[in-house]
């Protein structure tokens, strides 16, 4: 009797596999499926024609209409950024390149344009020196979007559960269990860290859109200027106060900037 019930438990456990696969599939569908509405796409193509005719102002307006209708894509932000760039608004361009980066981080055109735009920032880009492992970590995970990271986490999580379950029922697998689990858990931890870091800066990054913005010691117009920021510079928002933002430059210098001078994304 016990033997038979053991067999049942095995088959029940193995049911987990198709279940997990279905679940992951549903998740990926949820994340992949694009709701393409013909009207929205039409507007996009329309804007593209404006761009090709050199009417950047109109192109910007049309692209933003698409965005305002509640839809977005990496390509859309990229085209919008290009239009701003052509119009000469470096700040807005960099802002939109950054937004596109969050959706299509592996796009080479985007990378090239983004780097070019950044190289035009007055006063150069202040870069903090980081440790090699930090650089490696950033470089690897900058290739993933937030959604991809979340999805990978779900897959790895399912993988961990599957490995445990399968190894319970198929004893020969048990000797690989420790290795497989440690690899999966390390991956899980890394992906989790990456996701956490990306999520924690959402809405806390900002690009200076004014030609020149003064970072002051106190949130008043009369306060002493600590340092100057030029259009296109990226900063991290520490905290808001009235119409001021406390920001931090990449070299860890902080100051107060008028909220109209920057745009948070």
């Amino acid at each position: 009797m016990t033997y038979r019930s053991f067999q049942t438990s095995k088959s029940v456990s193995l049911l987990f596999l198709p279940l997990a696969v279905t679940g992951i599939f549903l998740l990926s569908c949820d994340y992949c499926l694009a709701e393409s509405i013909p009207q929205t796409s039409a507007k996009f193509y329309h804007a593209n024609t404006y761009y090709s005719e050199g009417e950047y102002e109109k192109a910007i307006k049309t692209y933003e209409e698409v965005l305002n209708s509640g839809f977005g894509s990496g390509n859309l932000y990229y085209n919008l950024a290009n239009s701003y760039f052509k119009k000469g608004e470096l700040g807005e361009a960099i802002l939109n390149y950054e937004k596109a980066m969050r959706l299509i981080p592996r796009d080479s055109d985007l990378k090239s344009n983004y780097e070019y735009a950044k190289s035009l920032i007055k006063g150069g880009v202040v870069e903090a020196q980081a440790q090699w492992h930090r650089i490696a970590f950033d470089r690897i995970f900058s290739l993933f979007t937030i959604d991809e990271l979340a999805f990978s986490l779900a897959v790895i999580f399912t993988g961990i559960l599957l490995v445990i379950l399968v190894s319970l029922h198929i004893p020969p697998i048990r000797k690989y269990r420790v290795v497989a689990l440690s690899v999966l858990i390390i991956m899980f931890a890394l992906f989790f860290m990456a996701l956490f870091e990306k999520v924690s800066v959402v809405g806390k990054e900002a690009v200076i859109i004014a030609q020149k913005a003064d970072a002051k010691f106190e949130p008043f117009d009369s306060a002493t200027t600590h340092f100057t920021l030029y259009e296109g510079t990226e900063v991290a928002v520490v905290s808001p106060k009235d119409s001021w933002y406390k920001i931090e430059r990449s070299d860890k210098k902080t100051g107060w900037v008028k909220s109209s001078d920057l745009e948070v994304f």
Partner: protein
Amino acid sequence: MRKEQRAKSKDQNTMTHGTWRIAFIVFFLFTIHYTLCSMLYASDIQFEATVDRETVSLGESLQLNLSFHGTQNVSRPEIGEIEGFQVRYLGPSTRMSIVNGKVSKSITHIYTLIPLKTGSFEIGPFSVVFKGKTFTSQALTVEVVSGALPSKPPTQGPGVAQETIPKEQLKDRIFLTIEAGKLQPYVNESIPLSIKLYINRLGVRDIQYPKFEHDGFSVKGFRQPKQFRHTIGGIAYDVIEFTTNIFAVRAGELSLGPAQLDCNLVVRKRQRRRRTPFDDNFFGGFSGNDIFNDFFGRYKAYPFQVTSPPLTVNVQPLPHEGKPANFKGAIGDFRFKAEASPKEVKAGDPITVSMTVSGAGNFDTVSSPVLDSKEGFKVYEPQAKQGQVSKVFEQVLIPQSAKVKEIPKITFSFFNPQTGKYRSLTQGPFSISVAKPEGGELKIVEIPQAVTKTAKEELLGRDIVYIKESPGKLKRTGKYLYQRVGFWLYHLIALIIFITLVTFYKHQEKLKTDERYARRLQAPAKARKGIREAQGFLAKEKSGEFFDCVHKTLIGYMADKLHLPAGGITIEAVKEILGAKNIDGEILDKLTNIFSACDMARYAPLELDRHKRETIFNDMRKVIDFLERKKV
């Protein structure tokens, strides 16, 4: 000269083997050869006379070579009679070699001289008229002795010595010399050193670089060896010269050498024995020399070490008088040049001073030239690049204020071993203009924490990449995947299912391995089944079956619960265990009643009435319920 003959015979050999290709190459070479010959001028021609040995015994023969270097068109010179010798003309031997694109050719007319009497004879000088010019060779002296020398058969193989070459003779035919360019150098002065290997009519292979004692000297690696011919006392030698530069690291009487050189001598073996089937070739004796042996007959290479006489070098210390203050040990004959750029800077910006020391000497001893004063500058360590004939120092100076007007003069001092005097060369001062820095006060950051990288220079014609044609994956903005309920729900459900499955698995595993657990777990179910059965019998008024069933159920339940063998259970044993577990007396009494009633009903023909049966049934249920609740 004999080598040529060998090469020639080799040529013929290959020809007889009938390779058309080689024939063509030979033809081609001859064509070039004659074309080149016709282009020659008499002025490039050298004439020399050599003999193959200076001492000859009666009965032996002597070879006289009249060589013309630089042409091949000289016909046999008439040398007439030579006193004390019988002259026989053997024939001409031509030779052409192309080394590094340089063509050298020669013709040698070979004569055999057979001594007729003992004594010392002078041969030559010989004069030859060629293209209207007269060439005269040097005179040679040959001693003829009467059989005192160990007589040996005439050389059989061309250019190869016999196995039995006496050491004495070998000494004249292969030797090593060591020469220094200067025997009284100064400390650290770079002097050339040359080690020459002289070979006369010997087959020498596998010549290695020489080794020599050089205590007190610093030696660089040998350069590519040079090969040439040199005649000493009428004997032509093939010379291999190894050169390098050395310098003494301390003063005093230092000894260089003896130099030693390892090589292999190729010697003809005497073929005394006949080949037998047991010869080593038969038994797989294909050692490294076999091909060589088979091709040229029986030759043997044996290792040989040539040793040179030592050389004494008297190294002198540098003189004290006239030594400049900033002399740092440079020795040689140098020139010095310095340049500074840019000349217009802001304070805090770097100026590079490039100082070039060129000339001949020991560059290892050359250290950076000295700035007269470093006032007003921040000075970094100079970077040195050392070449073959120059050494360049690049020094970075940072003017610290706008008051700095010039870079002070730069002095380089060295000792010239040729003149034996010190010299100081000066460059500058260089006038520069230093502007005030942009950001007011000047700070020179030693090691910047956050390296400020200025953006790269704008590339010419650079622009952004064109827009995307398609909208890509358009989707609702706002919510990320991790912010959706479904994402978290998926994890939750997966986790719940996982925990359930693991628990279920653990339970099954326990049932399989833990019998006591399994029995206890199954006891209530079995008891319930028994109770239902008993109820059935009660309703059907089947007294016997009823009591059997009650007994069996209760005994079975107790056995499972207390993990006892079902067959050996007695009411005493049960009561004892339950008593130890603090079970109410009432329950124990009921249990006793049930068992005794059962026994009575089963073994006595006594019919118990319906009421009694119902009491027993209810008691049984109470006992089981109680024990279940108590979790005994």
